[in-house]
């Protein structure tokens, strides 16, 4: 590439690489692609830039579900990874947690990217409930570590994907839902960097939104079509299951909203959509809107929302007699606060597994029961 890309899309591990490969067909030009894996076979499929991790550790055969092996593999390629991330403004890391490469290497790779000065946004998938206790625990631990390293983390529960498709649909269709979300996110991010937008935005604004590692991240994506497409898209984004996963944040302080539509789209529509988004998701501190015209969309309008808040600083503990009071201006990133962000109501308590399933996850999700549509 003659000019360095604005966004680097990195697929890590088997699941991550497959998703990136599927997406790479329709990506905007500002997005470059890289695949990282310990398993040599998954890397040979696509035409994108690849990097094999842990040649010595795994000899190209994957980690077999061992997170420690994944970690070592990533560390062994530190120099190459740093070269990969040098000079890139935004890195989007896509990975499937629960296995070895994804769970083990994700936080390390994100760490290198952050150290090279990139803003790191991660999409991490959590295993299906029926995959068993071990993978779920490994994924949970990995989420914690990853969340501390990357600037924005969006957790996608695989169970939720099953909700998006009809019960008798093939499995590949449910992954299509996840693909559309991540694709939408990428398009939304890329639009900040691409020239010629209807309402332009400074890429620096996006980066300042995701400036603090470990802050809870909100992501939503919706599509609308036809009459009143903007409002439909906005409503779809509001109802996006990603925003309603157990433990997802309900309201955030800062929003980055991208509205993309066909040539018929007006800025009024865009603003209406944003207003609806703001009612639902907050954005009190700042809301940045980027609107683009993509003729290829026709009468479809897509809305993608990225939001973050600074985590609430932990209330200074009552100073013991004689001890100095903590400086209240220093926000402390508490594990417990983060945990409660992820696991919602049940953060801070030990995970309970009965028959290998995490019982805190809603029953209907685990049993993959499709709910009747809302009126």
């Amino acid at each position, binding site marked *: 590439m003659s000019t360095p890309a604005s966004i680097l899309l990195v697929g890590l591990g088997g699941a991550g690489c497959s998703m990136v490969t599927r997406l790479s067909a329709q990506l905007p030009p500002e997005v470059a692609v890289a695949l990282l894996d310990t398993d040599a076979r998954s890397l040979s499929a696509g035409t994108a830039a690849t990097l094999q991790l842990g040649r010595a550790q795994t000899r190209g055969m994957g980690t077999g579900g061992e997170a420690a092996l994944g970690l070592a593999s990533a560390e062994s390629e530190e120099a190459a990874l740093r070269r990969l991330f040098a000079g890139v403004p935004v890195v989007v890391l896509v990975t499937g947690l629960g296995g070895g490469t994804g769970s083990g290497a994700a936080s390390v790779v994100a760490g290198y990217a952050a150290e090279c000065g990139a803003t790191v946004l991660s999409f991490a998938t959590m295993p299906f409930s029926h995959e068993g206790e071990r993978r779920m625990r490994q994924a949970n631990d990995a989420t914690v570590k990853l969340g501390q390293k990357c600037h924005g983390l969006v957790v996608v529960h695989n169970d939720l994907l099953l909700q998006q498709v009809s019960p008798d649909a093939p499995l590949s269709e449910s992954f299509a839902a996840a693909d559309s979300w991540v694709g939408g996110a990428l398009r939304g991010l890329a639009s900040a960097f691409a020239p010629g937008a209807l309402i332009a935005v400074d890429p620096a604004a996006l980066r300042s939104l995701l400036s603090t590692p470990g802050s809870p991240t909100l992501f939503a994506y919706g599509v609308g079509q036809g009459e009143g497409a903007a409002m439909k898209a906005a409503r779809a984004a509001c*109802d996006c299951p990603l*925003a*309603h*996963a*157990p433990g997802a944040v*309900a309201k955030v302080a800062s929003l980055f909203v991208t509205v993309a539509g066909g040539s018929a789209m007006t800025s009024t529509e865009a603003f209406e959509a944003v207003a609806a988004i703001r009612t639902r998701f907050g954005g009190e501190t700042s809301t940045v809107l980027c609107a683009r015209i993509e003729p290829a969309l026709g009468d479809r309008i897509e809305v993608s929302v990225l939001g973050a808040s600074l985590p609430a600083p932990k209330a200074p503990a009552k100073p013991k007699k004689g001890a100095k009071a903590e400086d209240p201006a220093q926000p402390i990133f508490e594990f417990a606060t983060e945990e409660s962000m992820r696991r*919602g*109501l*049940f953060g*801070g*308590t*030990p995970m*309970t597994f*009965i*028959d290998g399933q995490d*019982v*805190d996850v*809603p*029953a*209907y*999700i685990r*049993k993959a*029961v499709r*709910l*009747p*549509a*809302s*009126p």
Partner: protein
Amino acid sequence: MTSKPLPSLIAVIDVGTHKTASLLGQIIDGKARMLSFSERRTDGVVKGTVTDLEKLTQCVHEVVNDIERGSGRAVEQIYLSLSGPAAEGERVKGFVAVPAHDGKVTAKDVTEAIQSAKRLEPPAGRATILYMRQPTMLDNRPVSNPVGMAGKRLEVNFWRVTMEEGNMRMRVGMVNGMSIKVRDFILASHAAACATASDADKQGVLVIDMGAGTTDWILYYKEHILCAGSIPVGGEHLTNDLSVALRISRETAEDLKLRFGSAMHRENDVNQTIWKDGDKGVGDQQFNRGTITQVLSLRYQETIEFVRKDVLRRLEAIFPGHAVKLDQNMIPSGVILTGGSASLADAAEAVQLVTGLSARVGIPNFENESLRKPEYAGVVGLMTAAITDAPPPVRRPRGFLAQLKELFRL
């Protein structure tokens, strides 16, 4: 200095995930008369586990102060309920071989058997809390009173409840911090059973106390406890499921659960639409009742299924090698459902569906009308269990000498 014993005061406190309730009563003629009652929202407990000790201590403190103020009496000793997965129970046995020359069991033999049962070490890091009596076996036949009977091998059984030492210290310490002594722990499921099941029921009954954070169950057979357990799933999970499914806040979900929730999902429900607020105000939302009942019934029935599996697992541990089955023969009184979550519509029906046993919702038996609700089964049961199992020591009016001793203690 023998004077008529004063009616004893009993103070009990039930710390739950959703609420903490405390009852102060007087024992008159072997029955409890309520002097004061207090209830507050619990802060700092999730799924039956303590997440914020400071907040919980504050809450307990306030509740105790309330009942003292309400009754005008000072509380010095209190009974605590023990619930949740923290309390692990298992069966312990003690044997003694009846000396051959006589062949008849003596009281001494019984004592020896009890001692040998109680000598068994609990698992590492755990403290023993309760020993609850189970049927005595003479030559593998259950007997009610072996003294004087002929036999070779006497076996006494207890259901021993242990708790992690740190957890126990924390709870006792929390109460001691208010300078109140913990008189005793009482198993929450046993308490719920004492409140809702009669002695006749206890010939064979499974009592399920489903609270906000945990579901405690206890199985009685021939008036004795056979086994007990706990599942860390409760009403909160019902609410959470609904809030995720409908993309609404927890408070709204709780409200909808109480108004429209059901443990059974019927075909018809799908066709009903309901309004969240129902007042035709702005911002009101419509929901499909079917969604609500689907989500709740899935969770509720799954939880009961967990209970059923747990009961079977424990029975298998007690009677190894036998095929155990939960059926109406063994448990004639079926299932008694109690606790806050028993108020869910069609709960009994759901339980019947899942377990195959007859089920009913149990109301605590108490003189005071306001406490005759399933959510108070825990606290009322504590009072009942305290009176029968471990009554407080008899109080006598204090003479001058005693008061003198008191003030030196002060």
